[in-house]
């Protein structure tokens, strides 16, 4: 999520209304007001709307929403006469370049901060951490056009931003903080992307760092914007968002020629929308005129086109419009979510619980009837709890997560019983007897199924209790079972039984082995059992 700082004075001047109105209404276009301070507010916007990641963008949207200035904002673009060449060797490295000249900026410390934070938010939301899009802004009066986007040898050096001596690009990846952060994007390429001017001065080593030479200061009047990346659409929208924000702040935008094409154009794209489809999706009755009106408030160009259509011009800065329905959402926002008629659907349907949950509920009923208390352990656990402390071999089909957060959470549980013993450890200081059970999912070989397990601990807990409790629960679930002597090392030899259904082992019961009790630091005997709920007759196949 992007949290944007909105200084009231600047925002009020751009929006042409008071801050109270703005703060009251800004959540209604899709945001959360995080903090309201003396001179500014911090507001969180969604990642699909990077055009709102600046005070200028927010003001533009709010002028529309509040009806102060509606319809498509237009941004004139003059050719700058400047050219940019692109080295064909970049095709496999970082092929896409977007450029613009921004003239007549007037910076102070605050507005430099604002453009820097817009740049960072775009790196995050559109740029996927600079891999897809990286943006550089330069004081254009320090360098000489035309400019060249080249694939350079890695040993070439220049003075990177915030440093005073020359470093090679390889050194930058090792020593410069930004180099270390983003090295992974470029480090495997034989040549590195580099932007130089006609005198071979380095402007930027995208996506890593700019040169110190073109640093933007409060004296900067004219900016060269470079945006490089791997995806043309993402690069273009990043250029458009920065250019239109700067234009909102009073700058003028000029295009640059790349391979004979003038860029950017800041021109809208066009879609023709069906009014009836929009009405049908939203559950609101719309006319072409009313729908166009709502869209104009959301800063689209929109006019009725025949009895059923609206012709829409989508502003160039809207990164989120991929599909007609994306525009329908804007209609809903302008209409007001609070005004939508909220009625459940009328179609008659019958509720139906899932048989797995029905069985789980029956198992819970049997356990609670025996005085067992339910616990709901985590499903992520570790080999030590599941196997080592239980003296058991690793269960076949256990799944390990590839990047666990801690050594406590390395595998998905294959049994419940060890987790119940862990619970007894946790509750050693609580009054005995303690009878605990759990019914829940376990996973083997990517397949999930449910098991049920119970433990009872007190000075007299023994094999007979385990057998009696297991028998009661199995009986309640109509499981017709046989018992065979078990070899499960978690239990005491001669005090353990395997639960057999249709010739297959589906569970085990008995008195927990003292070595296992020691491993779980338990001091009293534990009668325990666990079985696979798939043994329930008629259990659904999953």
């Amino acid at each position, binding site marked *: 999520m992007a949290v944007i700082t909105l200084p009231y004075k600047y925002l009020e001047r751009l929006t042409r209304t008071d801050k109270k109105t703005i703060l009251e209404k800004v959540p209604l276009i899709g945001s959360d007001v995080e903090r309201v301070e003396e001179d500014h507010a911090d507001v969180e916007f969604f990642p699909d709307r990077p055009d709102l990641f600046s005070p200028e963008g927010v003001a533009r949207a709010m002028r529309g929403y509040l009806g102060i200035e509606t319809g498509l904002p237009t941004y004139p673009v003059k050719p700058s006469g400047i050219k940019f060449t692109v080295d064909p060797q970049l095709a496999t490295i970082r092929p896409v370049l977007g450029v613009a000249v921004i003239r007549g900026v007037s910076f102070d410390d605050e507005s430099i901060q604002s453009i820097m934070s817009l740049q960072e938010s775009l790196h995050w939301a559109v740029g996927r951490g600079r891999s897809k899009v990286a943006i550089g802004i330069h004081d254009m009066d320090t360098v000489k056009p035309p400019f060249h986007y080249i694939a350079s040898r890695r040993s070439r050096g220049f003075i990177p931003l915030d440093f005073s001596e020359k470093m090679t690009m390889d050194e930058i990846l090792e020593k410069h903080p930004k180099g270390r952060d983003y090295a992974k994007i470029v480090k495997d390429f034989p040549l590195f992307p580099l932007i130089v001017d006609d005198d071979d001065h380095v402007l930027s080593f995208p996506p890593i760092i700019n040169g110190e030479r073109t640093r933007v200061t409060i004296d900067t009047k004219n900016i060269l914007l470079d945006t490089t990346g791997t995806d043309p659409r993402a690069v273009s929208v990043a250029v458009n968002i920065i250019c239109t924000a700067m234009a909102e702040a009073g700058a003028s935008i000029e295009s640059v020629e790349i391979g004979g094409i003038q860029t950017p154009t800041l021109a809208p794209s066009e879609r023709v929308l069906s009014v009836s489809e929009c009405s049908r999706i939203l559950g609101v009755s719309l006319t072409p005129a009313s729908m166009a009106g709502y869209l104009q408030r959301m800063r689209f160009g929109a006019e009725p086109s025949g009895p059923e259509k609206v012709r829409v011009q989508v502003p160039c800065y809207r990164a989120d419009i991929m599909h007609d329905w994306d525009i329908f959402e804007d209609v809903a926002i302008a209409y007001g979510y609070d005004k939508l008629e909220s009625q459940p659907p009328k179609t008659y349907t019958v509720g139906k619980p899932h048989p797995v949950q029905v069985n789980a509920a029956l198992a819970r009923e049997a356990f609670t009837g*025996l005085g067992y208390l339910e616990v709901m352990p985590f499903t992520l656990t570790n080999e030590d709890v599941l196997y080592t402390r239980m003296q058991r071999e690793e269960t076949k089909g256990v799944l390990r997560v590839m*990047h666990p957060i801690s050594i406590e959470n390395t595998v998905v549980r294959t049994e419940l019983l060890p987790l119940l013993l862990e619970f007894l450890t946790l509750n050693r200081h609580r009054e005995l007897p303690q009878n605990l059970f759990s019914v829940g999912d376990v996973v083997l070989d990517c397949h999930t199924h449910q098991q049920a397990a119970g433990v009872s601990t007190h000075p007299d807990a023994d094999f007979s209790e385990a057998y009696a409790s297991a028998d009661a629960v199995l009986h309640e679930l109509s499981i017709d079972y046989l018992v065979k002597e078990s070899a499960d090392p978690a239990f005491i030899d001669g005090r353990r039984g395997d639960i057999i259904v249709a010739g297959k082992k589906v569970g085990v019961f008995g008195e927990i082995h003292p070595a296992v009790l020691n491993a779980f630091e338990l001091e009293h005997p534990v009668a325990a059992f666990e079985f696979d709920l798939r043994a329930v007759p008629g259990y659904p196949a999953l």
Partner: protein
Amino acid sequence: MAELTQNEKRLLATLEKEKKADAPHLAGLMGATPEAVVQWAHLAEDKGLVAVDRIVVKEFVYTDEGKEYAKNGLPETQLFRFILPGTMLSDLQKHEAFRIGFGQLRKKGLIRVEGTSVVKVAGASTDIDESALRNPAEGNPSTKELLKRGILEECETVRNVIAITPSGLALVIKGLDLREETGTLTREQIISGEWKNLNLRKYDVSKLPKKAYPGKIHPYQRIIAEMRQILLEMGFEELYGGIVQQSFWNFDALFQPQDHPAREMQDTFYLKETLPLPEGYEKVKAMHISGGETSSTGWGGMWREEKAEQCVLRTHTTSVSIQHLAQNLKPPVKAFCVGRVYRRETIDTTHLAEFEQLEGIVMDENVTFGNLLGILREFYNRMGFESVRFKPSFYPYTEPSLDAEVYVEGIGWIEMGGAGVFREEVTAPLGVQYPVLAWGLGVSRIAMLRLGLKDLRLLHKSDVAFLRETPSLRHSKGGL
């Protein structure tokens, strides 16, 4: 007045003659222990029938060492007696009382060492100490010294003197039923009719009962069950699905681009296992790349099969409902799923790496975004939240999207869940013909509020005392 127990009655009857006596004496008469008599007396005292006078007496008692000295004299006395004119120090050293006695005698200045012999000081005597040992008294400095030496110990004894009060006496004179009391009735007493002649003991109802702990389901399970019940009543069918899902169903089928940050290793638990892609996956692939046959542009770029085949621990139960939808194209479909979902988050009091999600879908010919609001309003109302509001939001696979908030007295508006209409990019490749309303909510959030938990981990690593003490029926107000 509360009923008298049999023992209180017996005590009163004994006191009728004795009037006033100490506990051991009464105990002797009643064939009980003095402690029991005092206990009965206190019960009777509460009813104003007797008066218990508790007299604390300070006594000196001998320690084991002191007992021996009381018999044989203090070590210094023993040694002192042994000294005769001309007694050599070396003789004295052989005496068993030398180790303690010699020091004491020197300290008290009762003897003098002259060269190799030991001489009594004129007029010296240990009589004062001996008398302090035999008749210890508070304030006697010699007694104090003996206490310090661990020969005597101070000990408090309590004497209880029990006297019958006038109202107690009046009660006795009126007559007491002194028949033996019966506690638990036996089978014989019940069937033989003997119970008619028995004096059944009456119990004191003002006392707290012994604690009994029923077996019960987890309070969190109860909240899940309540939500399930509401959805079943609202005509939803319940789904159940696996914890392990293919990335294809968890992400790709939901139009999550393959380079989406949520798909990265640091946010999702990946497994090394893979599963083959389902038949017809190419339509999803085409949707990602170019928007398929819809008005969508798609994400552009690359779409790699290997990435979609990878298994993950499901990050949402939508991976289950989307498969249900793919298999049930005939409207209406109204389904929900509650289950554990996984996010690779650092665990703290409000974040868990695994938590329950409740999620539902509705597919039908004419369902609208407004219907979605209606379903949510109904659900939250039934959960007890009277005020519900909606605001725009963003989810990668829905459009339009919303967040639902409920109003809770004392807290304010709380975000409860997200919802939206499945994007056409999601539904079209599966062959779904009609809009699909989808919504989800974090169950643990409601549980945390309702159960007043400060730490979410307690839901899964619960204190047994918390489970025992949380009642099955909680009087909920305003949804909490």
